């Protein structure tokens, strides 16, 4: 909690934030490299009138993190898209109430 209420509005914001900070703390990239990409995303969003509020902010964060992961060759775009589809399929084919899992993985 902050004086303004919860720090994150939704769990995905916290997850995106935490992945970024963890990888930075582990030395996979410099914070300046991150800030350049993140700053560019924010600038683009601001030009398009989307530069306000927590939700816009973390959407920029997520896009920037995807780009950084791609640039650093940790996770490519096709890899991400395929995995996204796998998760969507898993959700659509899991009966309500059962944990959603990816096929062929534990």
């Amino acid at each position: 909690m902050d004086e303004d209420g919860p720090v994150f509005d939704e769990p995905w914001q916290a997850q995106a934030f935490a992945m970024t900070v963890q990888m930075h703390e582990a030395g996979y990239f410099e914070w300046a490299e991150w800030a350049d990409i993140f700053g560019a995303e924010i600038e683009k969003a601001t030009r398009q009138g989307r530069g306000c509020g927590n939700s816009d902010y973390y959407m920029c964060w997520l896009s920037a993190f995807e780009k950084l992961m791609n640039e650093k060759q940790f996770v490519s775009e096709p890899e991400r898209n395929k995995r996204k589809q796998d998760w969507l399929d898993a959700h659509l084919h899991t009966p309500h109430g059962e944990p959603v899992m990816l096929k062929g993985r534990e």
Partner: protein
Amino acid sequence: MAHDHDHNDPPSDTVLRVKALESLLVEKGLVDPETLDTLVDRFENRIGPQNGKAVVAKAWRDPDYKARLLEDGTKAVAELGYSGAGGETIVAVENTDRVHNMVVCTLCSCYPWPVLGLPPVWYKSAPYRARAVREPRKVLEEFGTHIPADVEVRVWDSTAETRYLVIPKPPLGSEGMSEEQLKELISRDSMIGVRLAGAGQPNTGGAS
């Protein structure tokens, strides 16, 4: 249709993007899920403006500490046990009768995490980022902060490497107070430099 509902509602596109990244990074051994939880807990519950309040209260009471804080912010803050990501270089700037300091990150949202936690929404939003440099006095007025014309307003633009902490001016009458009492007078906003210490802090920020 809905009556034949036998699966989980699919998550939003955004949530799927995060899940995709997270599961790939975990598989590749680049991210550890338990550490993710610890990190979120750290930012949600453990670090926040209370750390900065302790730093400022100590600086007000202890001139030697204040001198060390102004000399090397990162080191002086670490003396109290505050360090880590977002605090690589912390520079403390002191408000006096002649200078009022305020902090912005025009690029994104760089902020001294170890002492202030994560920034408030208005700090991250376009109006403050754009206007703090262009018309600082007007922005300050919107926070209810009037700086006399003969006091210089200095605006510091944070970067990924350098983050600023404002040491506000101790309010009149606070001279004999203990550090605990002083902390009550220090708000997060006074350490960003948009309000004065002892001025209270309404929930809604200005400049938005």
